[in-house]
């Protein structure tokens, strides 16, 4: 039996990789996928705690988080298409309207 802490450390690692992706990447699509990765890492932690307590409630939470992720992907990609139509780029450094 793999100790439960290993799953949690893996989850933290995935979340940190997602954070690095959001901070480092300039490509809007990859930033978006890194956000999805962070959602997945949180899901893994929820599933782990659900297994630890022997309680299926966590699975219902993960189900709802999956729904939120799907909705977020749909709206976010629509926004991305809108931005690309106006600016002809998806480089995150080019979106500095509020900075000027």
């Amino acid at each position, binding site marked *: *039996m793999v*100790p*439960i*802490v290993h*799953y*949690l*450390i*893996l989850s*933290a*690692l*995935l*979340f*940190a*990789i*997602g*954070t*690095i*992706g959001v*901070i*480092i*990447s*300039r*490509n809007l*699509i*990859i930033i978006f*996928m*890194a956000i*999805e*990765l962070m959602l*997945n890492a949180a*899901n*893994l932690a929820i*599933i*782990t705690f*659900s*297994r*630890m307590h022997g309680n*299926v*409630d966590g*699975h*219902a939470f*993960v*189900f*709802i988080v*999956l*729904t*939120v*992720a*799907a*909705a*977020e*992907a749909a*709206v976010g990609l*629509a*926004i*991305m*298409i809108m931005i690309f139509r106006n600016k002809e780029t*998806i*480089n995150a*450094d080019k979106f500095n309207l509020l900075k000027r």
Partner: protein
Amino acid sequence: MLIETIIFYTAAVLAIGGAVMMIRQQNPVASVLYFIVSLVAQAILYVQLSALFIGALLIIIYAGAIMVLFLFVIMLLNLRGEKFEGAQSKIGGGAKFVLSIVFFVELIFIVKQIVFPPGMQNGQQQIADTFGSVEMVATHLFREYLFPFELTSILLLVAIIGAVVIAKREKSDTGGEI
């Protein structure tokens, strides 16, 4: 005992490797494919944690639906010739890595402070054979979490309408219907 450990470490290495390759790619299509590798590895971990139904959902919804949506958008955007060097950023690359690693260490400290309740071997409780099956998850979802479950349908409806409204082309742009 041993086979479980091997499966865990293989899946963990695949999940982390796929995630790292995902954020390192320049080509977004390759990035999506690496993310799918990471997702499949995570689904294996879910199954190992006896969450069979959620593991199947992860593959069907994420790898099947959301990633295809990403691929379609990449196809629509026509990104050929775009350059993504992060040279314009004010913060140096090393500082970003250091910030992220500090954040990771902080998470590890939080994990280390977990105190397992007594009566759990290895931090895990004994569970029934049907734990995580479709029947058990559905019973919980439709009895105790019926109201949140119904609310998700409204969330999806709002997302659909929002996506269509945002991505719709203004009529004055082209004069066409699309």
